[in-house]
């Protein structure tokens, strides 16, 4: 058969069109399939638990005037017990959600030559500040760390790939990395079956007891703090935290960085 350039180009053009439309049809068919599978589960809905505590912006006020070493240790113990935080002997592997430290470490930029005696040696609990403008959320490449509508900065451990950008970004050192398997070496004593553990290679931190708020309970640390820790809605002018802030002078950690922490300290 005689083939000239003209007939060849015609034939090639029609072929390309034909093949192209085939894949288009394929695409349409699979889209139908996706739509119908979505419909099959459309009758199922999700909602919040009926007794869940809700707020526009959760926050905490820590009254250092009511604190002492015993309360601080109790707070740390109950938090780490509730959330299956492993205890590693090696300092480098330490995991902390809430822990006690001193004024000079909590407020390094507020060092005074003549600091009031009471604050010099007072143990002060520090935890994730659940910033309104959280740097950890901005740097997370997988959105494993994210900010909930109620202001809680939460970890989705399923998504964490352990890159530790968030640890570099957090100005408060609130995050810990699981260098060791938390389930190994009996690092978790009396495991709380209500809460999962983590696995090796993920970052963890305080979650403002999101799992307790969901069932209508206050955070575990607040419950054992004998009034030193108060938890509530910062956006509600009638909440307990706002009342405390109205009547007392409060400071926050590294405020000049612009992260806008949700944890206030009364000194």
């Amino acid at each position, binding site marked *: 058969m005689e083939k000239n350039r003209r007939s060849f180009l015609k034939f090639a053009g029609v072929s390309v069109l034909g093949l192209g439309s085939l894949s288009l049809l394929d695409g349409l068919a699979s889209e139908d399939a996706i739509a119908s599978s979505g419909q099959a589960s459309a009758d199922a809905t999700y*909602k919040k638990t*009926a007794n869940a505590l809700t707020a526009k912006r959760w926050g905490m006020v820590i009254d250092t005037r009511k604190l002492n070493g015993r309360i601080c240790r109790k707070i740390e113990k109950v938090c780490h017990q509730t959330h299956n935080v492993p205890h590693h002997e090696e300092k480098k592997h330490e995991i902390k959600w809430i822990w006690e430290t001193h004024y000079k470490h909590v407020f390094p930029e507020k060092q005074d030559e003549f600091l009031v005696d009471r604050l010099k040696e007072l143990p002060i609990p520090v935890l994730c500040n659940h910033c309104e403008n959280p740097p950890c959320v901005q740097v997370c490449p997988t959105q494993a760390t994210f900010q909930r509508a109620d202001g809680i900065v939460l970890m*989705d451990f399923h998504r964490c790939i352990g890159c530790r950008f968030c640890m570099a970004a957090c100005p408060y050192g609130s995050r810990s990395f699981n260098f060791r398997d938390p389930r190994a070496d009996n690092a978790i004593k009396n495991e709380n079956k209500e809460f999962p553990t983590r696995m090796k290679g993920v970052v963890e931190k305080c979650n403002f007891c999101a799992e307790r708020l969901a069932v209508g309970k206050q955070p575990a640390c607040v419950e054992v703090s004998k009034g030193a820790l108060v938890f509530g809605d910062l956006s509600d002018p009638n909440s307990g935290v706002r009342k405390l802030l109205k009547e007392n002078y409060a400071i926050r950690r590294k405020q000049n960085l612009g992260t806008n922490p949700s944890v206030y300290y009364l000194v």
Partner: protein
Amino acid sequence: MNDKQKIIIGLIIFFAVFTFPFWYNHGAASSAPEPLLTDKAKEAKHCVRDADFMRKEHMQLLDGWRDRTVRDAQRVYEIDGKEYMASLSSTCMECHSNKADFCDKCHEYTSVDPYCWDCHTYPKEKK
């Protein structure tokens, strides 16, 4: 075709080696395992969704539970007027408390390795 013999022998050897996995494993395939129901699961008769859906799409369901619970704080899954806590460790494992006979059996057979249990707890099983 002077090397006809050599070529044919070569072809026979090639096909023998190529099909080795098929005839080596012939007849060795075990039948698909049947997940074992606990007495409590049998009594309930009905899972969150019907058995067919659960068999095919429990992974998508669990993914949905996981994402809505963690990311949207919506922990209740409502379907057909019934409410369930969207929780693997409590809701699923309450009836299907036999992880080895219910989950692991099929997962091993199909050679999938979900990492749920690296973090989530499951009930201790009686041996």
